[in-house]
């Protein structure tokens, strides 16, 4: 059932929040052992929260727009008193003393938290195989990965564990797993959603966003979690988004560009399945009255390289605090320095260590300009190229990922192959622009394909209008 529908029925008393939550717990009990979407299922608390909502409704209180709607939370968002691990051994057992701003907003809106979902350790990866607590599997085919890093959240929505989930997107970590799991995933404009309480990976790129089965549910969730937060200095001083009021306005007259560097022949390693779905999407938009043409964002091809300097550089600093001194498990040694080293050696997985080393190197004296400085200049170049493209187009499209879901273990031996999964999504993070993935049919392999819709900063409304059109024509519209 759609989130909007649940909220309506719970608010009107037609359905109890408890029954909704019980239904979802049942689904979890049935197949979670196969999928492993969660690091922690908070079923007991979810039922308590549901009862509280029901009693509020019974006493005539008006509830928020997500009354009684179950939601799963990526395990890198702080939940007060509830273990928050980032799927890392180094944070095992850590219970934050505070809630992330998005958690507060969800609770105010009446949402019920079902649990904390699995991710690639510290959100570093594209398959959720880098989790210290075992990989998540794709609900459409358990032999395949769900994508990542928010693979647990994407899988939770795809498997029916909750109609909504939150993830974080640093280089595609919401959009790519959304595409691979056949759900909607949104990375908002940088600063649109508060990062307070999101455990940082790369602060200048991280952004929290929703997963949902439908475009309108994703829009509703984004409306709830967006808006200025004084606790996040990079938060945009704007009121929460209002998307639903324009969601059905269509794309008639809209100018849509297909990014040639990230689609079709322009993109190395793109699977024919994905290519043909992009062509299909073009037809849908044309038929809906949009002008669709090829667009060029030349610098986007350098996005991946710039990203793999900037993100690890910031990560090397953000992850330095995990030293076993104040929180998390500690491996005790003779001296403080040795204790810190041993704690980190034992606590971090290989991919995290790889990126910490990469980032430390890139920021080192004598290398800063050649690596970090240059990457920041590439970032500016990408922004400029996007700005040029948006002179001609209202929105841009591309595939979300070059391929459909791939088998577990397929790319774990070759980090570069894994990194290429994010080639289409990274440019939006570097530019700070919104982008989302909309499920649009299936490949020959029967696995879902996602189309990425990109928009200029702050243009979430137009982005969602286009997504809605695509969804309506995809045969997946369950309204």
């Amino acid at each position: 059932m759609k989130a909007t529908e649940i909220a309506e029925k719970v608010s009107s008393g037609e359905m109890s929040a408890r029954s909704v939550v019980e239904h979802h717990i049942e689904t979890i009990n049935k197949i979670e052992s196969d999928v492993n979407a969660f690091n922690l299922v908070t079923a007991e608390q979810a039922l308590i929260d549901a009862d509280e909502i029901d009693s509020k409704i019974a006493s005539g209180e008006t509830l928020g727009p997500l009354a009684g709607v179950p939601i799963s939370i990526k395990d890198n968002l702080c939940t007060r008193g509830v273990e928050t691990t980032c799927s890392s051994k180094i944070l095992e057992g850590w219970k934050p003393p505070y809630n992330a701003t998005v958690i507060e907003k969800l609770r105010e809106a009446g949402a019920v938290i079902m649990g904390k979902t699995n991710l690639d350790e510290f959100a570093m990866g594209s398959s959720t195989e880098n989790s210290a607590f075992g990989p998540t599997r794709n609900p459409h085919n358990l032999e395949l990965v769900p994508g990542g890093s928010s693979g647990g959240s994407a899988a939770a929505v795809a498997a029916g564990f909750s109609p909504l989930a939150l993830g974080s997107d640093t280089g595609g970590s919401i959009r790519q797993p959304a595409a691979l799991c056949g759900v909607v995933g949104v990375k908002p404009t940088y600063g649109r959603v508060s990062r307070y309480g999101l455990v940082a990976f790369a602060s200048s790129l991280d952004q929290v966003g929703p997963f949902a089965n439908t475009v309108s549910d994703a829009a509703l969730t984004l409306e709830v979690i967006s808006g200025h937060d004084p606790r996040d200095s990079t938060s945009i001083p704007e009121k929460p988004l209002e998307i639903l009021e324009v969601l059905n306005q269509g794309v008639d007259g809209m100018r849509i560009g297909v990014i040639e560097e990230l689609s079709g022949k322009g993109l190395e390693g793109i699977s024919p399945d994905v290519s043909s779905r992009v062509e299909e999407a073009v037809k849908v938009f044309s038929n809906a009255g949009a002008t669709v043409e090829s667009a060029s964002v030349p610098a986007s091809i350098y996005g991946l390289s710039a990203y793999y300097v900037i993100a690890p550089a910031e990560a090397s600093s953000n992850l330095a605090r995990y030293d076993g001194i104040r929180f998390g498990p500690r491996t005790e040694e003779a001296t403080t320095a040795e204790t810190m080293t041993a704690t980190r050696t034992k606590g971090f997985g290989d991919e995290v260590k790889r990126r910490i080393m990469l980032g430390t190197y890139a920021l080192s004296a004598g290398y800063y300009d050649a690596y970090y400085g240059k990457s920041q200049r590439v970032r500016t170049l990408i922004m400029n190229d996007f700005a040029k493209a948006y002179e001609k187009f209202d929105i841009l499209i591309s595939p979300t990922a070059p391929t459909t879901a791939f088998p577990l273990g397929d790319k774990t031996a070759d980090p570069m192959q894994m990194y290429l999964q994010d080639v289409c999504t990274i440019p939006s993070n570097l530019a700070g622009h919104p982008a989302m993935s909309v499920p649009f049919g299936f490949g020959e392999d029967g696995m879902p394909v996602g189309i990425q819709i990109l928009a200029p900063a702050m243009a979430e409304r137009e982005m969602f209008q286009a997504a809605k059109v695509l969804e309506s024509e995809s045969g997946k519209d369950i309204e």
Partner: protein
Amino acid sequence: MVKILNSLDIKGWETVIGLEVHAELATKTKMFSSALNSFGGEPNSNTDPVSLGLPGSLPVLNEKAVELAIRVGLALNCQVQKSVFARKNYFYPDMPKAYQISQFDLPINKEGWLELPDGRRIGIERAHLEEDTGKITHIGGGGRIHEASYSLIDYNRSGVPLIEIVGAPELRGPDDARDYVSELRSILVTIGASDGKMEEGSLRVDCNVSVRRDGTEELGTRCEIKNINSLRSLGRAIEYEAKRQIEIIESGQEIEQQTRHWDEAEGRTHKLRSKEEAFDYRYFPEPDLVPVEPSEEWIKEIANSLPPLPRDRRHLLAEAIGVEPTETSLIVERDLDTFALQAISSNADKNRVLVHLENNLADGIGKLTPEAFASLTVMETNGELTATQTKRVLADLVESGGDPQGIAKSHGFESMDNSELEEIVERIISENSDDWLSYINGDETERKKKSGFFVGLIMKETSGQADGKIVNQILSAKAEN
């Protein structure tokens, strides 16, 4: 001041000093969160997710800290500019995030100067904002890190706003360095930026010392000395370090650039690390904060709200008295300049104001009013009171206030009738005729000596009620007759 060096050792050498002063800014809350900024208190009571660097926490800049930093910048004649926060990365347990949020290539204040009480201007390279670290206490092993059985960390200080004021290497000795820190401290306190308490660590000094042979322009290799906790240690550390460096160079070796630790008990510096072992801080712009761009309007508003600075006060008082500004520095330092100006505007004798404030009011003015002070100085210069009597009345005024005339009267300090005094003088002269002859015929030295002799006798005779000045006038008048 303990002198370690004899003059021979340092002859031919010049000590060059540049100071980095960290001052805790007097804000209510911390630099990047709403935890309280207050000294003392239960360990780890003034903390929150931000000052503990908990995962997911984010810094939000305290506007008051920026305002105070701008006050410091303006008071030090700096350019206030758009600034960017940067992360300074290094591992240490007192640093909860393993990076310190500081400012690197774009500090909020740059290129200013501070005027020493002697009128010399010392360059200020920059004065930037940063956050303080926590405080570690080593337990066991005499409090030293290597012998300690364990260490405790108090994060109450973590995230307290600091301003780091980097001075140019333009100081030339321990006295200079102390004068600079005193002056800076007094500026910081005057403008309300910091309480300036060195003993509570709210003012900390790192000291860069190098030496060079007299007459050379090129700077020598410097060493940075840490852990200086008082003005006294500052002077001692500089003297020790300069001597150490001179000895090394004179023995034909070269100075290694080092960070050294001042050991107060041993009275010496120890090597902490060499340049090669120095941290690579991997500075990069702090992505969790946006650049600080104070508006021209705001800077102007802050400039207009600045109280008169010690330098201005020295100049103002010096002008009122008619002396050089260097002569009024002690009074300004004691915060008695306003009092002095009030007394002067009540027609006090300017020079006596200066003398009494410097010599006789070191412990404060108590209940003394500027008006009473003014009339006292007038009484003194009119000869109504002798210097000794004036001091006595002054002490009473400080103690319990009141009117100088009344107090003088109650002590019986009524000025002697000159004819009465003249009689006494004549009697004393006749009783000591040999000495009187020496007074009349002796050379200047002899005359001085004898004048002291006579004044002493006359004072004794009059129980101190005679005015020494007048006695001398009578004596010289009689000598000429």
